[in-house]
């Protein structure tokens, strides 16, 4: 009997070495049943090696993987009750849409009528026209191919469904639509999803929990909300997108000095154990021009460039003694009133900055 308190999927000290290179380094994870869990990391962070071990295509050099308490380390991929949607989708080009979806059922010798019924049900759920049963997969569009790959994996009825960046090759609009669709399917099926991506933005949209990987290690695990509001370090903070990053040291009880300069900024963080670190200020919390006038943290610069980002406008401010331009974002319909080339005040509230360690 499996105890209810036991985690669904449990990784203990999972390590993968290729010669002298450590691709995955002592990863410990617990994933609960029905969760949408995402592993995020830049390329080379070890996330693909991770998923290959989870699916059973590679064996870990060290550590233990348990699914519902059962050790899975030496179980080959075709014996595991899990399934993956590949980055390339890996649809079988010589088979029709229907034949692709029913593949796992044909393998186990399920009879034709039952197979067809399940395929029809999945095609309906994934909004694929039933007439596509006979259609060659090579004639389907990118979005349709995604759905076919997902249907094929769901037909296997896996205990965990893995995803290896299947949306990365799609254009922006289709990707956004499919992210939401995937989230809906997760809710409808109640299955455990483990997703891999290099895009934290994508992870934020879909996941219940996110683990951020860097150089084979897990840097931070948390809900999207936790990660967004309390990034553990500079890496996580910068991984989320464009941010203003300042190297700082403690100046007073609630003030920080920019390392090597005289600028002093106020924060609301508890600085009792703090010596040096980084102050992260998101472009969207920055004020510019008149609205920056009564801000506690203020600095002057030249607004030398602006970019339309769709719903927002981004201004780049050159501050005399900093190398990097400062980024400020405003909503499209309330732009900054000045001209390009003007000297302008920018500022932020002490509670809007994030203080992180190295």
């Amino acid at each position, binding site marked *: 009997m499996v105890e209810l308190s036991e985690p669904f999927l449990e990784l203990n000290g999972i390590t993968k070495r290729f010669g002298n290179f450590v691709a995955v380094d002592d990863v410990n994870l617990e994933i609960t049943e029905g969760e949408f869990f995402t592993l995020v990391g830049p390329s080379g962070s070890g996330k693909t090696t991770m998923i290959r071990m989870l699916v059973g295509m590679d064996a870990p050099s060290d550590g233990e993987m348990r699914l519902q308490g059962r050790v899975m380390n030496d179980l080959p991929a*075709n014996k595991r009750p899990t399934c993956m949607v590949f980055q390339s989708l890996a649809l079988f080009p010589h088979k029709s849409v229907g034949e692709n979806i029913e593949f796992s059922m044909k393998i186990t010798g399920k009879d034709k009528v039952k197979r067809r019924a399940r395929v029809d049900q999945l095609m309906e759920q994934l909004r694929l026209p039933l007439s596509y049963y006979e259609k060659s997969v*090579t004639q389907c569009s990118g979005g349709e191919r995604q759905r076919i790959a997902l249907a094929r994996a769901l037909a296997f009825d896996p205990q965990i469904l893995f995803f290896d960046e299947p949306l990365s090759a799609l254009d922006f609009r289709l990707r956004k639509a499919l992210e939401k669709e995937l989230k809906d399917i997760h809710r409808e099926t109640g299955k455990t999803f483990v997703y891999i991506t290099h895009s934290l933005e994508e992870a934020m949209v879909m996941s219940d929990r996110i683990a951020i990987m860097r150089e084979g290690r897990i840097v931070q695990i948390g809900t999207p909300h936790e990660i967004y509001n309390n990034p553990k370090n500079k890496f996580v903070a910068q991984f989320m997108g464009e941010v203003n990053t300042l190297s700082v040291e403690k100046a007073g009880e609630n003030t920080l000095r920019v390392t090597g300069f005289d600028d002093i900024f106020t924060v609301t963080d508890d600085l009792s154990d703090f010596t040096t670190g980084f102050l992260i200020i998101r472009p969207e919390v920055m004020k510019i021009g008149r609205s920056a006038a009564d801000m506690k943290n203020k600095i002057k610069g030249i607004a030398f460039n602006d970019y339309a980002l769709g719903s927002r406008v981004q201004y780049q401010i050159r501050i005399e003694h900093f190398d990097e331009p400062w980024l400020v974002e405003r909503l499209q319909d309330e732009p900054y009133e000045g001209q390009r080339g003007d000297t302008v005040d920018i500022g932020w509230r002490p509670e809007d900055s994030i203080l992180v360690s190295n």
Partner: protein
Amino acid sequence: MAKTSQSNMSSWLKQPGVLAALPASLFLLIGFAGPLLLVVAYSFMPSKTFTLLQAPTIENYSSIISDSYYISFFWSLAMALTTVVLLFIICYPIAYGMAKLFNKWANLVTALIAVPILISENIRLFGWVLILLKNGVFDGSMQSLFGLSISGLLFTVPAITLGLVYVYLPFMLFPLVIGISMVPETLKEAASDLGATRWQIFREIELPLSMPGLMIGGILTFVLVLGSLAEAKILGGQAIVMIADDIESAFTFAQNWPKGSALSVLLIALSGIIVFLLFRRVDLDRVIGRR
């Protein structure tokens, strides 16, 4: 009217590629299509004539059908089929190794298999004669080592089959290597992930996807064996007569060019029909996923 057709002609000639293709086309016309047409024309001439100026007749064809030539056709087809099946069984594992497993050793294996092609086929077959001969290399070794006499290997159908498999192995192997290396590894991983066993992956994924290579190798060796002569003569002696042997006798010994031509036309038509049917049955484009 004459003027426009002339200008059409010159503008057609000025198209890119036409002029460049002309020498090769002429060469093919004279060297390939011409002799074939001559053979077809001779097949309709009266028996034992050496001119094309007689009234055409179908007597050669009717005499072939009423005669016992079907036995030679049968042997040729049977040997071709047997050879293709044996070659597939022998070559698939080697090709798989060369495409997926041997890595840098694949080049060495390729060289080892390709180098014998540089030696004349007849000389290689005579090498086999020396091995299979009574008191030859094999028989002699068995006698001196174990005191067993194994004679009667030469001049049998298995000896011919051995020769055919040996000579045509590269023509099956190399297309198969290309066919197998065209199967993406991720598709096999995906099949395995969906629960397929090693054998199911082979049947459902690898075999159908390497079909283009298999088809090309199969057709190549099938047609080559149909037209083969030396293996049956050198290793088979009088064991069987294959159709190419009959064609040769008609042209040389019997001095009956029209009969030889008619047999050639029938052989060409037979192989043509078989290849056509095979290509119709296996849709290569669909297999490769182009449609």
